[in-house]
Structures are given as structure tokens and as C-alpha cells.
């Protein structure tokens, strides 16, 4: 109840000021636009906005960035449904049934069930966030550097081994991120590491350059090299736009089930939106009655409603570990964390005590943002469809110009442009050989934090490495970490032996 009190007295009071409402609206609009545009994701947008937001007050800036994160998930479904090219990983599944519905002239109901489902899931997940966050933050206050380090190991293991199809490639991506995070002055001893005597490297590699390089430059190089021949066809918005009574009847349960699947996945360190959306899709497919089951693969509304809800609930879920533990579990969350750091604000359990207006204002803005996004996406969907008509070459040209500008603006130096290109080529190769990029981004941001906690733990416990195993909470976390690493390969081997 205390949290509801704080939400209404502090949160809405902060979020409803005209300035913050405007930031939320700006974030949601921008988010929807980039969600709709194929090839641009929330991670790159948030990164691009980081330098711009430096002069804005932290609450307003974070409200806007959260709006972008959220809005991109709403907008992503439009592209999946109408163009069959998912803009975000979380929208891949919606393309399966959604695009079929659009082809059958039911684009309207598909877009509606996606938008309303996102709204329902986002709102429920925000209520859960409101109630859960202070409880978890209270618990997290008891965690010392030993436990925090163990928790970060769990995050590393989960993002590398669980996401993507090859744990080894996930680990290599993580190690590359950790290596990049090592470059620069080490915070505790003041020693410079891996700077090769180059002055610009002393401050380390900026997250803006990494995100732009991986997501904008790498993606463009990949598209130019491999995807010039592929062309999409935009389905037109014809027929009734609104959902029929039957559509409502078939959608509300998948919305709720999707929320129930998505939210916990978001809060786990193995976050990300791919898995919950796929799970929701297969759940809907299994639960459907025989009549509906036949429609799956041909445009079943359940297959859009469930995954879209799961997607939004998962995104809201990732804010739980970000705000209460200071641990990001997705690429966008990692970049949001560096937005906090930009203002010298450390997300984590203390945030609720030190910056209550900010954190409650941010949570309250999610409720408001959800309503804004419903309005932006339902009646105004025709406007966003126009975005899909921007020719692809020009779209990518614009993205690259913005990315180079973002990197150049950091220090007005061509050195950052060179780093941007090198990281872009790395991103291209990772895409080419199916390496996931999320572990790299998480490694880059969380790596230096993990080292700090590790060394703090060691200095408290006189260099005794066994503390990680003698502290019960840390031991439990490390056991789970080990299980994540060991169990899946064992199960695979068992399956193989059974088949043989």
C-alpha cells in the first residue's frame, strides 16, 4: 500500500507536470515512429538521444527514454503486420499470423488486437512493477558486494547461454563486450588499461559509439551486402478497422495469458522479448479449439493478441531488475542504465530512497505512456503506415548520417568515427555468423560494475575467494548460474542418446 501511496502522491504529481507530460508524449511518438521504421530499434534510438538529453533534467529525460523503449514495442507490430518485416526481435512472432491476417484483408483487427493487447499487458505489468519494485528493492538492500557480484555472474550466464542459438557464440559476444569495457582508466587504481597510448581511449569506449556501430552501421553494412534483393510488400489497410465481437472474444484471454508469460520473463536476467513471445504463440496454438487451430498459419487473431501482450509485458518486466538491482537484462535497458549514469544516478535499491520523485515519476509515466500509445497507435495508425513508404535506401542513408553525427558530436573527433566504423564491421560479422549482440552490450555496461563489486568484496573479505560460496544468498545464485550453464547441454545430450 505504501507503494500505491508513493505512486499517487509522488509519481503522478511528477509525471503530470506539463513538461514531463510533453517528454512522455515526445518519447512515445518517437518510439512509435522508430518502431514502425524497419531497421531502427529502440536501442539505437535511446543511444542516439543520450547526448541530446544531457542538458535536460534527469526525470524528464528518463521519462522520454522509457517512452521510446515502450513506444517502439507498440510500433514494431505495425511493421510486422503490414510489411512482414519485424522491426524488433519481439515482433517476429506477430508477423506470422498478423501478416496473414493483413493479406486476408483483416489488417485492421490485427493492428487493433496488437495495440489493445499491448495496452492491457503494459498496464497490468506496470501495476505489477508498482507493487513488486519496492519489495525487491527492500530485499536488495541486504545484498552486499558479494551477492551483487554473484547476481551479475548470473546475468552474464543467462544473457549469453539462454539467448541465441549457440551458448558459445553468446559467450564470445559477452567476452568481446567485457574486453571493450576494460579499455580506459580503471576506476579504483587509476591505471589506464588497453589504451595503447591513445588519448581518446582514456575515457573508455562510449556506449553511444558501440550501440550506433552495432545496430546502425553493422545493420546497414549487412543489408547492403546481403539483402538488396529482398523487397517487401506493404499490405493495405482495407475493410473494417475495428475488432468484431468475435475478435474481442477471441483476444481477451490471449492478452491475459501473454501478460502472465511475458512479465516474469522480463524480470529474469534472461530477459529479452523473443522467448516469451514464442512461448505465448505456442501456448495459444496448443490451447486453441480444433476449429481455431486450423486457422493458425493462415491468420489466427490469437497468434497476434498473445505474443504482442507478452512482448509489452516483458519490456515492462525488464524495468524491475533495472530499477531495483541496477542490472540491465536487455540491450535497451543497458543503454538506459548508462543514461542514469550520465546523471550520476545509480539505479538500484537505494534509488527508491535517494530519488523517489524520479523513480515514481518514471513508473507513473508508464501508465500515462500506455494511454498515449493506445491513442497514437489506434486512430493514428494510418499516419504511421506512411512511414513504411519511405524508400529503404534513403531510410538507411538517414540512419547512418544520424549515427555518425551522434558519434561525432561526442568529442568532435574523427577518432570516434573510426571506432564507429570498426565496431560497425564487428556488428556486420556478428550478424553474418549469427552471434547475438545483447551479451556484448550487457558485458560492456555491466562488466566494469562487476569488477568493482568483485574488488570491493575482496577488500572486505581480505582476498578470500571462498566468500562467494559461504554466503548463502551468493551460493544460491551461483548454483542457479551453474545450472543455466550445465543443464541445457546435458538435456541435449540425453535427447540425442534417446534418439540414437
Amino acid at each position, binding site marked *: 500500500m505504501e507503494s500505491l501511496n508513493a505512486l499517487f502522491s509522488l509519481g503522478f504529481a511528477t509525471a503530470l507536470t506539463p513538461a514531463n507530460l510533453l517528454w512522455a508524449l515526445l518519447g512515445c511518438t518517437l518510439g512509435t515512429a522508430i518502431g514502425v521504421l524497419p531497421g531502427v530499434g529502440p536501442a539505437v534510438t535511446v543511444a542516439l538521444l543520450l547526448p541530446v538529453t544531457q542538458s535536460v533534467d534527469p526525470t524528464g529525460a528518463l521519462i522520454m527514454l522509457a517512452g521510446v523503449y515502450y513506444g517502439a514495442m507498440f510500433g514494431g507490430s505495425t511493421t510486422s503486420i503490414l510489411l512482414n518485416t519485424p522491426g524488433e526481435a519481439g515482433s517476429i512472432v506477430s508477423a506470422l499470423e498478423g501478416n496473414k491476417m493483413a493479406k486476408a484483408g483483416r489488417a485492421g483487427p490485427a493492428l487493433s488486437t496488437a495495440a489493445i493487447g499491448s495496452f492491457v499487458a503494459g498496464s497490468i505489468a506496470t501495476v505489477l512493477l508498482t507493487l513488486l519494485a519496492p519489495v525487491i528493492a527492500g530485499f536488495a538492500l541486504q545484498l552486499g558486494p558479494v551477492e551483487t557480484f554473484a547476481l551479475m555472474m548470473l546475468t552474464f550466464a543467462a544473457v549469453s547461454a539462454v539467448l541465441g542459438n549457440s551458448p558459445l557464440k553468446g559467450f*564470445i559476444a559477452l567476452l568481446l563486450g567485457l574486453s571493450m569495457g576494460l579499455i580506459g582508466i580503471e576506476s579504483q587504481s587509476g591505471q589506464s588499461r588497453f589504451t595503447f597510448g591513445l588519448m581518446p581511449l582514456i575515457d573508455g569506449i562510449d556506449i553511444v559509439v558501440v550501440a550506433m556501430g552495432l545496430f546502425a552501421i553493422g545493420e546497414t553494412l549487412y543489408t547492403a551486402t*546481403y539483402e538488396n534483393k529482398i523487397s517487401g510488400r506493404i499490405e493495405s489497410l482495407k475493410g473494417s478497422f475495428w475488432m468484431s465481437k468475435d475478435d474481442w472474444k477471441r483476444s481477451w484471454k490471449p492478452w491475459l495469458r501473454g501478460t502472465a508469460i511475458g512479465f516474469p520473463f522480463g524480470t529474469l536476467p534472461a530477459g529479452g522479448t523473443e522467448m516469451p513471445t514464442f512461448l505465448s504463440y505456442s501456448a495459444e496454438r496448443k490451447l486453441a479449439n480444433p476449429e481455431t487451430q486450423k486457422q493458425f498459419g493462415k491468420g489466427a487473431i490469437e497468434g497476434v493478441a498473445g505474443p504482442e501482450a507478452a512482448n509489452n509485458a516483458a519490456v515492462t518486466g525488464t524495468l524491475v531488475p533495472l530499477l531495483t538491482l541496477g542490472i540491465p537484462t536487455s540491450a535497451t535497458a543497458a543503454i538506459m542504465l548508462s543514461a542514469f549514469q550520465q546523471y550520476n544516478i545509480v539505479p538500484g535499491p537505494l534509488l527508491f530512497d535517494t530519488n523517489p520523485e524520479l523513480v515514481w515519476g518514471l513508473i507513473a509515466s508508464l501508465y500515462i505512456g500506455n494511454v498515449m500509445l493506445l491513442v497514437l497507435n489506434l486512430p493514428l495508425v494510418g499516419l504511421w503506415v506512411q512511414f513504411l513508404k519511405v524508400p529503404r535506401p534513403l531510410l538507411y542513408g538517414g540512419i547512418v548520417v544520424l549515427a555518425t553525427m551522434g558519434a561525432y558530436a561526442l568529442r568532435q573527433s574523427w577518432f570516434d568515427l573510426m571506432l564507429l566504423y570498426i565496431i560497425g564491421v564487428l556488428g556486420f560479422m556478428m550478424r553474418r555468423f549469427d552471434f547475438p549482440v545483447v551479451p556484448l552490450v550487457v558485458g560492456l555496461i555491466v562488466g566494469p560494475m562487476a569488477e568493482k563489486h568483485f574488488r570491493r568484496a575482496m577488500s572486505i573479505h581480505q582476498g578470500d575467494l571462498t566468500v562467494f560460496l559461504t554466503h548463502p544468498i551468493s551460493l544460491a545464485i551461483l548454483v542457479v548460474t551453474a545450472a543455466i550453464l550445465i543443464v541445457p547441454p546435458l538435456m541435449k545430450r540425453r535427447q540425442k542418446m534417446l534418439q540414437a
Partner: protein
Amino acid sequence: MIKRVSGEQWLAFGIILLGLFMAWQLQDIPNDAGYAGIGPRFFPSLVVTGLIVAGGALLMQRRHSNGPDTILSDGENDAAEVEAEDEFARGDADWRMFAIASGSLIAHMALIGLVGFTLAGTLLCFGICRALDTRRPTLDLVLSFALALGLFHLFKTLGLNLPALIPGGVL
């Protein structure tokens, strides 16, 4: 298929080399035992070891999957099938386009200080359009210029000064 395997093996070599290079660079980090024997060299050593081991594992795994017993496939498909599907989804590489995109980025890097943001940005945007196989180059050139000029002035008003052709100029 052979091409792809060798590509990934090269990548594995690259990762091992990166690890070795970093190991060599480790010596430059002074290790005056910080707190309790854990100095600034400890964590990098772990990462370096990880890179070398993981690079080695990638190399082994690939070689392994050439044989009949595949690790990467999920047990049902055999490697060739997975490979074929992948290649189908990806299409053939068009390295000329990669070169155009890369060249545009490098030219932009070299030129931005000389000819200013607007002209370098126009060239970059147009170059990327070419790399993405545009069908209407003239229009794209005009639009690239408009975009770069617009951004230049937008950010000038916002207080972010990008380099101009002539200091204080309109381009």
C-alpha cells in the same frame, strides 16, 4: 558450405589472436597488489583467458561439425540442411555494395573536418543509398543534401555546432 565454415574458422582465429594480443598488452598494466592481492590486472587476465579458450572452442566446434556428428544442429536436421537453409535465407553476398558503404563511411570520416558536415553528410547519405541499390539516384542526391543541410541547421539552433565548410557558413 565450405566457404562458410572457413569464414567462421577465420573468425575463431581472429578471436584467439585478439586474446593473445591483449595478453601481451597485459604486461603494460602495473599490478601493484591493490586490495588484498587483486590488482587492476586480475580481471583483464580472466577476460583474456576466456577469449583464448572460447576462440579455441569455436575453432574445434566448427571442425567437429564438418564430421557426421554435429554439435550445432539441433539433433534433427543434419548440418548440411541447416547450412542450406541459412544460405537460402541470406542470399549471396554482394561485396561491391559492402565496399561502397564502407568507402562512403571512410570518406565521410576523412572529409568531415575539411568540407564540413553538410557536404560530407550528403556524400555519406548518397553513398549509402547507392550501396542499397537505389533506383533513383538523382532524387536521392537532392534529398541527401536536404537532409544533411536540415540536420546541420537544426543542431546549430539547438546549440550543437557541427563543422562547416567555411567557419560560420551556411553549409
